[in-house]
């Protein structure tokens, strides 16, 4: 029982709490749990800044409606969770796990996604902004084109809603790059996994512009990948990525 409570507290605190970190060593504080309310981060560019590759209408709905809904539902679930923890209502705590994972995942994924996109005309959108990352991409996949092909195939292979990510996987002193797909809003938060950039493959991410032509969306997204952010995440740690996330929350 305690293990369930502790792990959910630790999960949320690690990602979102800026003031109080509840660890296994510290006593649980209800106030710290109840207080944080997550908010929609502002986009680092205008809604129309990614045109013509992603339309302003898509960006506005995606950010102000879809992402906002994940934030709203996450806050609601966390509030209920805090009450259930406070009253030691374990069945309710357990029953909330799926909603927390889904909505927290939606919030994490979209927050990282907005940051790993940039207007096509900006220097950030050039792979030359990521020399170390591109070098490892080349040594892993042979060349950039082969990597893009592999990433595209992974994205188009998703059955249903989900995400494709380039991930740095750290195993001890070793690290490697991997293309990872996740279903629905499952976030990349595994131990040693550092998400470098992600592409939203839910239909809401492209449908108003590309309809059923998702291959064209996947082609065009390369024009607006923020390689500068990608390089920073690649050179940094998992904690750095989520620290970036925290500043926007």
């Amino acid at each position, binding site marked *: 029982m305690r293990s369930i409570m502790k792990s959910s507290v630790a999960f949320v605190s690690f990602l979102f709490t800026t003031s109080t970190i509840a660890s296994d060593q510290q006593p649980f504080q209800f106030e710290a749990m109840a207080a944080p309310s997550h908010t929609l981060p502002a986009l680092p560019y205008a809604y129309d800044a990614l045109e013509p590759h992603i339309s302003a209408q898509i960006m506005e*709905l995606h950010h102000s*409606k*879809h992402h906002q*809904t994940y934030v709203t539902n996450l806050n609601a679930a966390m509030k209920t969770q805090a009450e259930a923890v406070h009253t030691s209502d374990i069945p309710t705590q357990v029953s909330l796990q*799926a909603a927390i994972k*889904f909505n927290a995942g939606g919030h994490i994924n979209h927050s990282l996604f907005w940051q790993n996109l940039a207007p096509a005309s900006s220097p950030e959108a050039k792979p030359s902004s990521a020399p170390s990352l591109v070098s490892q991409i080349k040594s892993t996949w042979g060349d950039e084109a082969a990597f893009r092909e592999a990433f595209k195939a992974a994205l188009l292979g998703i*059955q*249903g*809603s*989900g995400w494709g990510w380039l991930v740095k996987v750290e195993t001890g002193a070793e690290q490697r790059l991997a293309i990872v797909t996740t*279903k*629905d*809003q499952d976030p990349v938060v595994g131990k040693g996994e550092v998400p470098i950039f992600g592409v939203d493959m*839910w*239909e*809401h991410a492209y*449908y*108003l512009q590309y*309809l*059923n032509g998702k291959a064209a969306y996947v082609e065009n997204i390369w024009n607006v990948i923020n390689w500068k952010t990608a390089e920073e995440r690649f050179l940094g740690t998992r904690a750095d990525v989520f620290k970036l996330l925290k500043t926007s929350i």
Partner: protein
Amino acid sequence: MNSTMLRTSAARSALRAAAPKSSTRAGLAGTTFVRGKATLPDLSYDYGALEPAISGKIMELHHKNHHNTYVTSYNNFSTQLEEAKAKSDIAAQIALQPLINFHGGGHINHTLFWENLAPTNQGGGDPPTGKLAQAINESYGSLDSFKEKFNTALAGIQGSGWAWLVQDTQTGNVQIRTYANQDPVVGQFRPILGVDAWEHAYYLQYQNRKAEYFKAIWDVINWKAAEKRLK
């Protein structure tokens, strides 16, 4: 999973719906290919006939593009499966199972979906009668309370998927079940009535306001078709 799926009544009716074209195409598939190819079934109403509940543009893309892609991909992977079987390549057969499930499921689900929709001037929205009405009343109290529970189930789908009214083949009872992605209603349950909750089913018209789509679709539900599926 493939063979199980094809034995279900849902799969048979999906294949029946495609019957007129399958005989002419079967010859192209080669001598080792026993079954006819799946084909895109025609709709029994115009693309615009479900307006205003579902726009003509959505219906056209959904049928001609999305459903057709499932048909084409299912046939493609089905052919690969036949080849893997012919070579006794078990690993390849297993690797193809999720693709058969997804694309075959997509074909079955959409075929059933088109059938359980109808324009209002062809009975769309007219409440169920007979055994099905009775089963719904017994399980849910009233049609309105059933619709409310069904819409809650639809809204609760995390990602892409379907909600179905199904009949338990063991008990005969009806219940609401949700299925992820294109997982078809097979095995213990018989599909009675399905609603597509993928974003492509409503996004051009309703965008993020999916609750409005779930509310509106009851105006074009073909309960007569649903009644015929109940055993």
